[in-house]
């Protein structure tokens, strides 16, 4: 029993998860690169979807790692070490999921319509939306996220062996510089990989929406992962009620913040009522030809009631935040809601046809939903394999962090 709880027993299993990842991502690659392109590039979108889902969660984890450093959060050290184990997955997920789609010209033209568009809207934005700059930016995202993750791990892991408290100050400095850099990088990643899928539409709040989604996903992954590690892994006897409480409070705060940002984006566009902005919401509510509510309407309603209202009400209660099974249940709901939010943002698009309005919108319920989930499972297994493999390089908690005893004895 005690043997299976040891870090080495856990991290020895990384090849198993790497194999699962290889099979799942390989299948998704097969559909992405060896099936004919449609106008909505739905098979290719599965690869982008799975990668962006985990990129989002890992960006949230990167931000939480730096923010808890900056605020010197006393509760954080034992949890932050797990975040540090996850960080190397972020550039790899973008490299495996986004870069191949962007580098293949015909797939690039289908997924990112603007790369083959010639209308005035694209002409006016071409100083930013041009293919060489786009590809260069994706490389830039990989380098920035990879570099920040490396620096945050490197000094933290070194502290385990050389017991130098000064590394904590180095990490403060890295985080202080890293937060604005990562904030801009994640904003442009969201613009390039998601908002630009519909290049006529624009929202200045899109980057903040992506940030709030990222933090919500990061917290839900953290709650589920630390619960697993405390019941079956190396955090047994360390993670306590107060850690769950603080994570629960953050989940509540970012549930409200996500709703605030998502609603504000909707509200500003609704109020201004300009067709070049409102179409983006229209295709997520109504069938353009019949004017009836489409499948996406029900997805939208789930976002309002299932991804905001239900977690919000549940998280108001103190006991939801401290009872392990309840907070894991809410974290799972938020994890699922994140999947839906990404579907809702990435998938709907106009498909041109001969109807009187000239287009229809692709449906939500299509067989490729299964491929999307396979992609999420594949990239999830990859992230977990990298987590386990990185865990071999350091202590499972930062034993010489100046705040380690405060974190172990954290109290509400």
């Amino acid at each position, binding site marked *: 029993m005690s043997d299976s709880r040891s870090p080495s027993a856990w991290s020895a299993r990384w090849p198993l998860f790497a194999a699962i990842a290889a099979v799942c991502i390989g299948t998704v690659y097969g559909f992405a690169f060896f099936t004919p392109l449609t106008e909505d590039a739905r098979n290719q979108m599965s690869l982008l979807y799975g990668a962006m889902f985990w990129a989002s969660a890992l960006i949230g984890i990167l931000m939480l790692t730096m923010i808890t450093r900056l605020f010197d959060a006393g509760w954080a050290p034992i949890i932050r070490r797990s975040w540090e184990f996850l960080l190397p997955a972020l550039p790899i997920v973008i490299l495996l999921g986004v870069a191949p789609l962007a580098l293949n010209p015909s797939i690039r033209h289908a997924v990112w319509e603007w790369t083959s568009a010639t209308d005035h809207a694209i002409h006016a934005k071409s100083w930013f939306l041009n293919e060489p700059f786009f590809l260069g930016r994706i490389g830039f995202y990989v380098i920035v996220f990879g570099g920040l993750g490396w620096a945050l791990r490197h000094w933290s892991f070194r502290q385990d062996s050389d017991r130098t408290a000064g590394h904590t100050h180095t990490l403060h400095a890295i985080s202080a510089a890293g937060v604005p850099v990562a904030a801009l990088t994640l904003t442009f990643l969201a613009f390039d990989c998601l908002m630009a899928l519909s290049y006529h539409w624009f929202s200045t709040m899109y980057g903040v929406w992506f940030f709030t989604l990222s933090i919500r996903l990061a917290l839900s992954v953290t709650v589920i992962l630390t619960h697993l590690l405390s019941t079956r892994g190396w955090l047994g006897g360390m993670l306590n009620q107060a850690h769950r409480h603080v994570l629960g409070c953050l989940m509540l705060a970012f549930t409200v913040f996500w709703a605030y940002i998502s609603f504000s984006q909707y*509200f500003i566009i609704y*109020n201004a009522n300009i067709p070049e902005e409102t179409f983006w919401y229209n295709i997520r509510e109504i069938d353009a030809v019949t004017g009836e509510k489409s499948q996406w309407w029900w997805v939208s309603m789930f976002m309002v009631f299932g991804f905001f209202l239900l977690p919000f009400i549940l998280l*108001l209660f*103190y006991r939801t935040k401290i009872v392990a099974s309840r907070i894991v249940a809410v974290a799972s709901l938020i994890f699922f809601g994140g999947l839906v939010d990404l579907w809702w943002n990435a998938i709907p698009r106009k498909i041109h046809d001969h109807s009187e309005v000239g287009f229809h919108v692709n449906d939500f319920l299509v067989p490729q939903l299964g491929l999307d989930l396979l992609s999420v499972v594949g990239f999830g297994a990859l992230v977990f394999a990298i987590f386990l493999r990185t865990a071999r390089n350091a202590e499972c908690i930062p034993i010489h962090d100046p705040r380690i005893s405060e974190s172990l004895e954290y109290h509400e």
Partner: protein
Amino acid sequence: MNDHSSQDTQPRREERVFGVACSFRSVAEIFHAAERIRDAGWKKWDVYTPFPIHGMDAAMGLPRSPIPRVTLLGGITGFVTGCLLTWYTNSFDYPLIVGAKPYWSVIYPFPVLYECTILFAAFGTFFGQFIFNRLPRHHHPLFDVPQFVRVSDDAFMVVLEVSDPRFGNPDKAYDFLASLGGQDITLVRD
């Protein structure tokens, strides 16, 4: 042990008693004393320390604060008030179309609704704590106890209040506190 004759222990005639206080010298002592007072079934008593002691809530058997419920009630009241305000002004009393939006829906006045929710929830919290803390209060009987000033420095004080049904008479409270290892046992006059 029960020699109270040399101390200021007995209430004088016509005098109201707030409770009996005693001091402890360390966190561990007061922590265990609190657990034993809790286990003896006391309800009206309190602990005064120079700094917060982690785990003291549980050692004293304190329940969660009722104030979050007042906050929630305030929030719901605020949301309903916001709905009524926007519906009454824009749809009922003086129906007005603004920006091609409906007279009333839950969307266009949402900023008003959530601002009202937050405002009333804050009122609920603020006035809730006023009521539950019995504020405003300009004086407290403990301010007349000379040892009490050391609570802001190095003393840990327990006060058993006379309003607790277990209090009985001061002598019983004295003996109980003495059995817990309390020192400087003093009568607190109201």
